[in-house]
């Protein structure tokens, strides 16, 4: 029997730092909700908006897979492995912090905001060698289908991480319906609706709603309007 959990957009935690507006699906920093610590290996899902020219100063990470997906604007990344890059809408960035890494992230533009998703996944191996990667995705490849953007395999589509996880982006026209099949037994699926209205099974999801489902094999997702959403399949056992 499947299990589900619904996180409506307006129940997320919130942080307002002036230059940063962040919505937290799971407990993060000053937002603490013991009922919302993680969904399996998915630990953080932050929906961030950063003012022009502002950003996160240099800070350390370790033993976490960190994925950034820009939704609007340009984000400049600089890290202790001498990477200096800019990621923009259409890109996906991954950082395996492993034994430790320091990085900073700033809005590259001074006259516009950058909006991005910051996602942390618990790794399946500790103290790995830190690594960084980013790729540009072809937006056409998610039209009315699931575009794989992340997997555990370095030779598969999208970026890869140290976890038995798969992420897909999709942009559906109104009326489109498609079935998602779980890739690895024991995994759960977290659906984060970016825009529009969709149904995950029978559950209606509006913009920025999140919905987790586990102990299932297939899930039908349909669009009640033009919609864009992110699917995150992750192990449920840590």
């Amino acid at each position, binding site marked *: 029997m499947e299990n589900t959990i619904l996180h409506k957009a307006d129940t997320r935690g919130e942080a307002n730092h002036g230059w940063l507006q962040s919505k937290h699906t799971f407990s993060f920093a000053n937002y603490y909700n013991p009922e919302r610590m993680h969904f399996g290996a998915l630990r953080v899902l932050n929906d961030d908006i950063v003012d022009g020219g502002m*950003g996160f100063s240099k800070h350390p*990470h*370790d033993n976490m897979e960190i994925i950034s997906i820009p939704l609007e604007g340009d984000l400049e990344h600089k890290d202790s492995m001498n990477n200096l890059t800019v990621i923009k809408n259409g890109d996906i960035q991954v950082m395996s*912090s492993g034994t430790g890494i320091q990085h900073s992230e700033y809005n590259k533009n001074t006259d516009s905001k950058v909006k991005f998703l910051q996602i942390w996944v618990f790794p399946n191996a500790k103290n790995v060698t830190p690594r960084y990667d980013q790729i540009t995705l072809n937006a056409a490849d998610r039209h009315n289908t699931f575009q794989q953007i992340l997997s555990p395999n370095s030779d598969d589509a999208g970026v890869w991480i140290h976890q038995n996880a798969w992420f897909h982006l999709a942009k559906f026209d109104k009326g489109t319906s498609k079935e998602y099949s779980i890739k690895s037994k024991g995994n759960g699926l977290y659906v984060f609706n970016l825009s529009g209205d969709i149904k995950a099974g029978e559950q209606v999801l509006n913009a920025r709603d999140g919905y987790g489902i586990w102990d299932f094999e297939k899930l039908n997702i349909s669009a009640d309007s033009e919609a864009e959403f992110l699917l995150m399949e992750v192990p449920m056992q840590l």
Partner: protein
Amino acid sequence: MTKKQILVVGRHQDTNEKVLHLINSNEQWIGKGSITDENALEMYQNGAFDMALLSGGIEVESGIKLRAAFTEKNPDVVVLQHFGGIGTLTADIEKAFQ
């Protein structure tokens, strides 16, 4: 003005040291660190910490247990989770103390 004392619990020595450096560069705060739960609990019992910062690598279950132990001794202690690094660390600590 009394400095606020902050206990940083993280599994990774190097990350802990970087977090402590950030904390101790603020003249209103004093940070001390531990990489094990046992040592952290001992430091907490013998100290007078205003905040416990759960830092990189702390397992979810450990975080729950530490939070319970810290608040049991001092219900007013601020427990701030910081699992694996936050770019807004300083601002989050300031906000938590407000």
